[in-house]
Every structure is written in C-alpha cells, then in structure tokens.
C-alpha cells in the first residue's frame, strides 16, 4: 500500500462506498480500507445469525432459527424511495445490475388509541380511509389534489400561495386540515421526524409530498423499495462499482493514524506502512477529534415468526408513529421485512423499531412500536450516538460523513454524500460521466 492515491476512504458504510464509487468513476485513484472484515460498517447486514447474537453479546441459541447464513439482519432500518435520490444514483452508476429490489407491501400510520391505518395511496383511498371522519376526508382530498396539481414552474397552479413564504401551517389552515390529518400528512407522507417543519416555508413540504406520491405511483402498494439480501448489499454494490473503476479494496485493515502536514492530510498509516493521499473520506469512527455528538438513536431489532398484526399479513411494511399521537417530540418508526427478501429463514420476519432518544430510558421509548409487533422471539436493542463533523474539510482535506439518522429512507443519506462530493471536488457530481461505462458493457 506504499503508493500514492488521490483519495483514501476509511470505512465501508453506504456513504463511504457511494463516495468511493463516485470518486473512482470521476477518474480519481482510490484506496478504500475498513478495519472490519465485512463490508457495510454501521449500515451492514449481519450474517450469519450467530454473529448478531455475538455482536449484541446476547445469550441464546441462534441455531434454533435455522441456517445462520440464511439470515442477513440490517443494523439500521431504512427503505429506498422509488423516486428518491439513491435510486437515481443506482440507475446512473449502473449498480442496479448487481441488485434486486422488492416493493414494500404496505405503509401504515399509527393513531391515538393504538390502532394502525393504511396510508391512503390516492384520492380514492383518501375517501375510504378509516383514518379520519367524513368532512375531514374531503379536506384531505382537496389538499391532495392541490399537491398533485402544484407545479413549481407554473404559478397558475399555486392558487395564490407563495410556497417560499407561506408556512406549512398556513397551507394546512387553507385546506382546514385538523391536527390529526396534519400529523398524518407531515409525518407519514412528508416523513418529517418532528414538527419543526410546521413554521418553515411549505415548498419543502410540497416537494416531500410529491416525492412520496410519485414514488407510490411508480410501483403501487407503497413508495418504498428494499434490496434482496438486505441493505448491506447497497455498500457492496457501490464498492464493486469503485473497484471496477480501479478502486483498491482492503478489508480487515486497521487505520493506525491519519498523517497531517501543516494541518492538511498527506497520508494514512496502517500496519507500519503509509499510503500517501490528497484527501481522506471517512465515517465519524475514524476521526473522533473531528466530530461532535448531536444526539442518540435507539433501535430494537426484533425477530418474529409471524407478520405484524393488522397489516393484512404483509411480508413487509412500514409503520410510522407520529410524535404527537404518543406525546413525544420525535416519531417512532417500525420497518418490517421477511424471508421473502432473503434476509431471514422461511417463516421469519425482522422488525426494526427506532426513534431519536429523548429520555434516559431509551428502550422504554420504543414501547409504542414494540407493542404493535405481537409476540417477539428475540430482541436486540442498541443505543447509538449520532455524530456530525466539526471540520468541513476545507483546509484539512478530511471529509467526514454524518452518522445515519433516524429517518426511514435514504434521502438525507444522499444529501450528505452529494454535499461531501461537492466539498471534496469543488463540483457537483456529473452523472453524464458514467454513461460511457454502460455503453462499453453492452
């Protein structure tokens, strides 16, 4: 490894692997290392099942759950929005050829009193939903039609609303949406994690609504996609992309020291050797001195031998518990996948329940989610610190990703990735550059 690289990437989490791929595709010479023996870092899927028990230091007999290798258990719960940025990245880089996806079967929202309701998929379902009363349904339907019609470039469709000034709250008022419907729209459709958005200009809210419904319209059922064999396939796919474009891969390779000269990174030391580089891209765990803790997420990985009750036996689903419905400040999320995604032994389901920590008893905060699952065969609970970089990398040329937040999809993940790419290279990622590869393969 005593060579000179343009970029050394540390850690093989999804963000690092996408960046590694984008850098290689852009013609940069990349060395990609991970201290672990496996790909994926915090966004790995753990296999075999015995390793999950070990990782959580949990007693118990993993062998009662069939062949350990048939399990691929995600550490973080997230789905892809069908029209979201990660899908665009996969399509533009050709990584789709390494991956297969299934549509998540249902999307549900929790309402006070403990019942879950299907998120209405269109205007028709808006009228038949059990989520709200008769008059409210009409209001909601009118709101939906407005969103549907809204075109950012055509002021005639705005109905006198300046989306860059009008707040979400004011738009709700315009359509007389009550508090419950606001909760539902803001959290289960716009996928806001808390209510901060309500005083913000509504354009962001409208874009998020459109993303949800455009994604939903793509495959029906739900706006979400999930890769067979688990989310850990995503970093592997982008790592392969990087390798195809010349990226060098070393797993099980410790990073002993990041070497600086005059505050600027010049190399990475590992096992007595130093690889020179012009920049480093890494996850927070490699640079404790360049990140700050901004919060915590609590997650429970639950193994079930049945579908989640009241989801019509869905083999996969998402349930969102809006904060207000359970008197919290942050939503609770439930993501469920199963054997049909090649992540569990036949007959088994994996449900992940997660939220942003608000109290000093984090596990208890998941109760509203856990209570929806029915009998739980095994439960693995973790509390993770969330880190953000304190160094923009402008001088040090060390670019640090943020920890994976509590959102249930990859939109913020992609924003972070593209932002790092721009900071690191000084330009936006040019998707047209990867086209030649696709043509070459044909």
């Amino acid at each position, binding site marked *: 490894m005593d060579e000179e690289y343009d970029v050394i990437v540390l850690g093989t989490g999804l963000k690092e692997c996408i960046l590694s791929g984008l850098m290689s595709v852009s013609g940069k010479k990349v060395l990609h290392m991970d201290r672990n023996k496996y790909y994926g870092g915090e966004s790995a899927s753990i296999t075999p099942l015995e390793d999950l028990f070990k990782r959580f230091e949990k007693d118990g007999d993993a062998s009662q759950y069939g062949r350990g290798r048939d399990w691929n258990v995600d550490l973080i719960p997230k789905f892809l929005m069908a029209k979201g940025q990660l899908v665009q990245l996969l399509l533009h880089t050709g990584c789709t*050829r390494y991956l*297969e996806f299934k549509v998540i079967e249902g999307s549900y929202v929790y309402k006070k009193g403990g019942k879950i309701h299907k998120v209405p998929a*269109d205007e028709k379902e808006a009228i038949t939903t059990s989520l709200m009363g008769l008059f409210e349904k009409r209001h909601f339907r009118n709101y939906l039609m407005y969103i549907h019609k809204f075109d950012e470039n055509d002021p005639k469709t705005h109905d006198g609303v300046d989306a860059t000034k009008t707040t979400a709250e004011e738009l709700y008022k315009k359509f007389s949406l009550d508090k419950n419907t606001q909760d539902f729209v803001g959290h289960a459709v716009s996928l806001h994690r808390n209510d901060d958005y309500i005083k913000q200009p509504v354009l962001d809210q409208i874009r998020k609504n459109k993303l949800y419904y455009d994604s939903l*319209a793509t495959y029906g059922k739900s706006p979400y996609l999930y890769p067979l064999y688990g989310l850990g396939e995503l970093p592997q*796919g982008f790592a*392969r992309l990087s390798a*195809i474009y010349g990226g*060098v891969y070393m797993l099980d390779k410790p990073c002993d020291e990041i070497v600086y000269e005059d505050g600027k990174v010049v190399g990475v030391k590992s096992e007595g050797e130093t690889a020179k580089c012009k920049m480093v891209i890494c996850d927070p765990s490699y640079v404790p001195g360049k990140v700050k803790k901004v919060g915590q997420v609590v997650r429970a990985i639950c193994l079930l031998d049945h579908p989640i009750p009241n989801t019509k036996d869905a083999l996969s689903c998402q349930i969102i518990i809006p904060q207000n419905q359970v008197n919290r400040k942050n939503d609770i999320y439930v993501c469920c996948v199963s054997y*049909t995604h090649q992540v569990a032994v036949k007959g088994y389901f994996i449900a992940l329940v997660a939220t942003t920590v608000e109290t000093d008893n984090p596990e208890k905060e998941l109760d509203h989610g856990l209570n929806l699952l029915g009998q739980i065969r095994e439960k693995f609970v973790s509390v993770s610190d969330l880190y953000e970089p304190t160094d923009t990398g402008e001088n040090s040329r060390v670019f640090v990703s943020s920890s994976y937040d509590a959102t249930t999809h990859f939109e913020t993940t992609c924003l972070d990735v593209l932002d790092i790419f721009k900071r690191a290279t000084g330009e936006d990622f040019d998707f047209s550059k990867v086209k030649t590869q696709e043509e*070459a393969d044909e």
Partner: protein
Amino acid sequence: MAGRGGAQWPNGAAQGKICQFKLVLLGESAVGKSSLVLRFVKGQFHEYQESTIGAAFLTQTVCLDDTTVKFEIWDTAGQERYHSLAPMYYRGAQAAIVVYDITNQDTFGRAKTWVKELQRQASPNIVIALAGNKADLANKRMVEYDEAQAYAEENSLLFMETSAKTAMNVNDIFLAIAKKLPKSEQGQASQPRQRGVDLNEQNQSSSGGCCKS
C-alpha cells in the same frame, strides 16, 4: 441493459429456450481470469492485460442442441487482491471458474482455497470448473496435470488446462459448464432467482404523476 436475472424468453418460440446463468471467476491475481473472459467473449488476447479495470460484467452465449445458454460473467474487479471480495459476488452464482497459473504452484494452492470458499459460501448446486491457465507456457510448468486432475475429480470439479493466449480449451471449458448446468422447463437453473422490480423500467415509463390511481 438487462437487469439481474433479466433474460428474455421467446414467447412460445419453437427455436428452443434461452437459459441465463451467473458465472463468477475466481483465482489469484494475474493468473489470467480477465484474459480468459476476454478471449471467450471477444476473441481477443493482450499480452500485457492491465489489472482489471472497466468491463467487469460481460455476457456471452453458448449454443447447445435446442438451448441457448447465456452467461452473465462477473470478474472480480481486483477485489480478491486483499481478500476483500464482497459476499454479493458469490450470491446467486450458478457457475464458477476457479483459475490458477500452471507455472505457479502458489496459485494452485490459492485455487483450492477458493474452491473451499465456494463450497462454504455459494449455493450448494453451483457448477465449478478448475482452469489451469497459461498452458502455452508448458516449459515453465510447476503444477502437474495429473495432480490438478486428481484434485478436481476428488471435488467433482470440471477440469481443463487452458490458454487465453492460444485460445486452447477456452470455448471448451465454457461449453462444458453449459452442458453441466441444469436446464429446467422454465429455462432457469435449479435455483430460480426471485424476480424483483426492474428499476431500469421506471426510466422508460411515462411520468407517473402523483396521486394517480
């Protein structure tokens, strides 16, 4: 661009069926994995083939009597160099060619390790072929033919010595694999791949506006 498992079946066609298989290449660096593929797919050979960059995903078809076998060939893209091949690489592979260099005993030892790895990680029905490459350099031979053949027999592997340079046995080894692969009624191998959604289709479909039912 066909997605994974995206073979097209001729609709009720009489000319026979098309079967698509994922084939992975394994072996130490510089034994000639990419050269074998390049010879098989494009009929080319480069004396100083660069370490694999770029085309690491090629397809080629082989015709058997009434069946067309389409190989979707995965090259390691160099990720084997520091033992960093992703599990994704083996996933769903129905065939593998494990390559060694007949002029280098170490590469034969590594080939055995790869076979073990495949037996551990890949699907149980995978068809494995062992290729002793660089057979044109027989005067520098370090791995005896009989030794390799005995090992292959013990482990139920197909075995041939090949030369990407002279094209010796290159088409033959792919053909032998094609013959050994199970061709079921639907034209898929014993482990049919799960059909997922094809993300590439959504680019072609007309813009599905929001809220449409």
